[in-house]
């Protein structure tokens, strides 16, 4: 078996005196789809944001695609490493965070244009094919405000894929959407997982998606991974009462 593509070791994160993550370890192999769930405040979003250093871990080591960064080094001494790590992780946010002053196509092209060494034409072609993948090629020239929430989130997914990341991080990607728009985003994600074998870490409460797509589910509770197993096992009988109680509450 090849080395894991993501390796999180001894991850702690405190905000002031509040300890949000109390030692999280996780190894993820290429092609895995991890669904992370748990009560709000359980640390699941913080965990995701620590992986690409949007939150600075208090303690621990993050390794993505063979490069590792440890907590406790002043930011400016390792800015380049962090930037490199972020390019290997695509991130999709709850609030989409599209750039409102750029067209849809420019949103997708922005990072590769500034960062990659690809030619302008290949950047453009790649961006257009990503937009086609998420079903929005015809919206390339629009500005984000003219799109529905579901369309915006699909653009955000295309944008995150533009740097050809090795891992995709999804931070509650459907929580801000109207119910009727959720499925279009989930189907793009399902497609990514099943047809493109993208490695994904998804923080979500969409249990239908988890059951169908996840290779592993991790239940976060009070800053730790309390229980993790394949979705069938999780749904057929989580071992711990906390997990069971939470699953009953969301399903």
């Amino acid at each position, binding site marked *: 078996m090849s080395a894991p593509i993501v390796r999180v070791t001894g991850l702690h994160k405190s905000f002031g005196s509040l300890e949000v993550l109390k030692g999280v370890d996780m190894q993820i192999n290429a092609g895995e789809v991890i669904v992370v769930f748990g009560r709000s405040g359980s640390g699941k979003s913080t965990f995701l944001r620590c992986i690409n250093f949007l939150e600075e871990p208090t303690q621990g080591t993050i390794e993505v695609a063979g490069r590792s960064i440890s907590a406790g080094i002043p930011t400016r001494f390792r800015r380049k490493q962090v930037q490199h790590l*972020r390019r290997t992780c695509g991130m999709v*946010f709850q609030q989409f965070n599209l750039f409102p002053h750029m067209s849809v196509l420019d949103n997708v092209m922005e990072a590769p244009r500034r960062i990659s060494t690809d030619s302008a034409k290949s950047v453009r072609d790649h961006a257009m094919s990503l937009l086609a993948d998420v079903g929005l090629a015809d919206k390339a020239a629009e500005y984000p405000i003219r799109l529905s929430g579901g369309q915006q989130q699909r653009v955000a997914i295309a944008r995150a894929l533009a740097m050809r990341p090795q891992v995709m991080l999804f931070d509650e990607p459907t929580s801000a959407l109207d119910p009727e728009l959720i499925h279009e985003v989930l189907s793009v994600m399902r497609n990514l997982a099943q047809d493109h074998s993208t490695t994904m870490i998804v923080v979500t409460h969409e249990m239908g998606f988890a059951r169908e797509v996840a290779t592993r589910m991790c239940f976060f509770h009070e800053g730790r991974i309390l229980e993790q197993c394949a979705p069938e096992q999780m749904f057929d009988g989580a071992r711990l009462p906390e997990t069971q109680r939470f699953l009953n509450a969301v399903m």
Partner: protein
Amino acid sequence: MPLAPTDEAVPQQRHGLAQSLELFSLKLPFRVKVAAVWLVIGGLLLAGFLKSGFDIAWMGDHAFAIAKAVWVTIAFSVIAISLAVGLALLGAQGRVSRNPIAYGISGFYTSFFRGTPLIVQLFLWYLALPQLALGLLPEQYATWFIWPAQVAGIVGIAFNYGAYMTEIFRSGIEAVPHGQAEAAAALGMSPGQQMRRIILPQATRIVIPATGNEFIAMMKDTALIGLLGTTLFWADPFRMAQLSGKADFRNLEALIAAALVYWGLTAVFSFFQRKLEERMSKGYVRQVKNAA
């Protein structure tokens, strides 16, 4: 006093002048009435001027020379606003920085230049800086800091307005939602790229109205530069008006002419500012405008 007239207070058949005017006024659009007010004010002023012996012929002879000097105002303003925008960009970076040196310098800058009168600052650059330089530096270097009035004036105005605009730019930068920088960071963009490509373009849209107001105020304040004693070549409308008005004892005519020049200039700029704001709203207005 009753708010609404009662039946007794308003006998039904009375049609006095007041009532007729009121009825007539009801039929006019608000804008027309406002225009009428402006016309009346203008007419009264004109009548007052003429009564006081306002010399229209003199004004006709000299107005062109005064108006022509508007290029000096424009030149001063354009140079000063460019410097001020540069200073404000740097200053705003300092204001949002966690670096104590950058934050400290920008804080000192905005505090001093917003906390002292502009006219005092102009004289500091013009008269006090050379003295400081001569006291500190060997003479061949000190002379670099002895500036002509127009240079000291432009620098003074730029530093002063740069300080105010620093705070405007800072608030603009802080008004861009945090998720924007985060999204850019998550894509692997450097802090500089995040600022230049994502934050500043959005902040610019936010600060344009306030910056436009600063520019208009600055255009008018360039008239202060003349007080340092600029040469005739660099004389702006105000200084031209002073020179020619004093010579012929036609101060009213000359100063009114200068005032009209500044007024016209700000009106023109306000128009362009409105156009620019409309353009900048792209990507923020949902309404469909036929894309060309």
